[in-house]
């Protein structure tokens, strides 16, 4: 029977919290860049210009079908050789997960936008709105409400996938956990604490999205009935 002793782990909790903070930075930036990029790719895919539409489809399919770890290694090791840029683990991580998640967000945006009744486009057009204005004022506000559950699901997936960035020596929560485990010889305790940290992080995040869903549902139609 294992003799549980959290003293060493909790004594170095600051070390893990630093990792948590670094994880949140990559996660946050991947969302900040990934969501607008996802919208842009979705609009590109729905464009009537065949070349643009096909290009965006390819980007989506490519990043959805290749493993995130391969993408990360590619951005970290291959890209600097090809275009001779300085690549830090942080930049490679943010780049990988921004683009990778944008491919998924693009499909969520596309599904959300397509789910809005054609009559909404017609009504907006009939009062003189251009397509971009209609998209911004009429379609997206409704589509975003419907997208929230899928969006939350994808973001949680993203947050968990960021553990991969420990493999390029970025000091995220997983990386710090590995370090601490080998330092304290207490891997069970360390990974237990880390699991609890991820659990609460994601719990808080999902509660926030539910809150947001409720707030948005108050005006008109939403995903909640």
């Amino acid at each position, binding site marked *: 029977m294992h003799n549980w002793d959290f003293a060493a782990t909790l004594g170095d909790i600051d070390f893990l919290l630093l990792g948590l903070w670094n994880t949140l930075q990559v996660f946050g930036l991947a969302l900040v860049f990934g969501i607008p990029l996802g919208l842009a790719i979705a609009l590109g895919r729905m464009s009537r210009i065949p070349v643009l539409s096909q290009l965006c489809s390819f980007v989506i399919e490519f990043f959805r079908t290749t493993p995130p770890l391969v993408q990360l290694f590619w951005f970290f090791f291959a890209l600097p050789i090809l275009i001779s840029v300085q690549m830090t683990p942080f930049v490679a991580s943010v780049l990988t997960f921004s683009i990778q998640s944008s491919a998924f967000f693009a499909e969520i945006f596309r599904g959300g936008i397509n789910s809005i*009744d054609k*009559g*909404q486009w*017609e*009504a*907006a*057009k*009939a*009062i*003189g*709105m*251009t397509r971009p*204005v209609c998209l911004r*004022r*009429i379609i997206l*506000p*409704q589509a975003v*409400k419907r997208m929230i559950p899928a969006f939350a699901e994808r973001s949680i997936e993203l947050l968990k996938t960021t553990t991969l960035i420990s493999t390029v020596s970025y000091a995220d929560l997983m990386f710090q956990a590995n370090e601490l485990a080998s330092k304290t010889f207490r891997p069970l305790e360390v990974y237990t604490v880390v699991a609890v940290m991820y659990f609460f992080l994601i719990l808080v995040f999902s509660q926030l999205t539910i809150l947001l869903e409720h707030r948005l549902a108050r*005006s*008109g*139609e939403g995903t909640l009935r």
Partner: protein
Amino acid sequence: MTPAVEIRDLHKSFGDLHVLKGIDLDVQQGEAVVLLGSSGSGKSTLLRCINFMEEPNDGRIRINGDLIGAERGGKMVYRENELCKLRTRVGMVFQHFNLFPHMTVLENVMEGQVVVLGRSKAEARDKALAQLARVGLEEKAPEYPSRLSGGQKQRVAIARALAMDPEVMLFDEVTSALDPELVGEVLKTMRQLAEEGMTMVCVTHEIGFAYHVANKVCFLQDGQILEQGEPHKVLKTPETSRVRDFLDGHSLFKLPD
């Protein structure tokens, strides 16, 4: 006087399907014109060409004398900007209302005024409330559309179109999706508009409305206008057997006098 709408030799095809085969139609200022015909006759397509929801393949449309589009090599070309501007001058109401569900009734009626016409919020609000009062729904201003009945939704949709101060109003089967008991309130609103001198073109199956409200009735058949004229003439003494059959079909189960 310049007609509010002047249509000459209008053609529209969807792929191989030739839907409109040379339509000529004048709608005078303040006139209410009703388009009748069986489904597939092209009446809705004709209506949707007037505000360029559908771009015609050939022909000319003038709105209060202004030719829409520019002629290039015998063909009309249309710029999106020009069409957007035109649509602010020609209002349209749809069968399925198409209110914006994420906005209140008031916001629905303000939206086009603010976003498209660039009116101030205060001005748009005043105009919106005035139009809502006109259709008898001022007290519904703060509600969301989901709280309204079908008839109320359609009257809000009418107010939304009117708030743009259109020169012409188009009604595309606006009572077809309503419960029978709610049809009356919408038709009443439309009659009131006609009496106030609004220029209107209506696609409807309400023969009674056509008879009592329209100044002119056009019967479409196979993409062409088969008969047109004053309602009592076309609806009471039609010249063709086709129109007679259509009207008979509509009054098959009339109540005895």
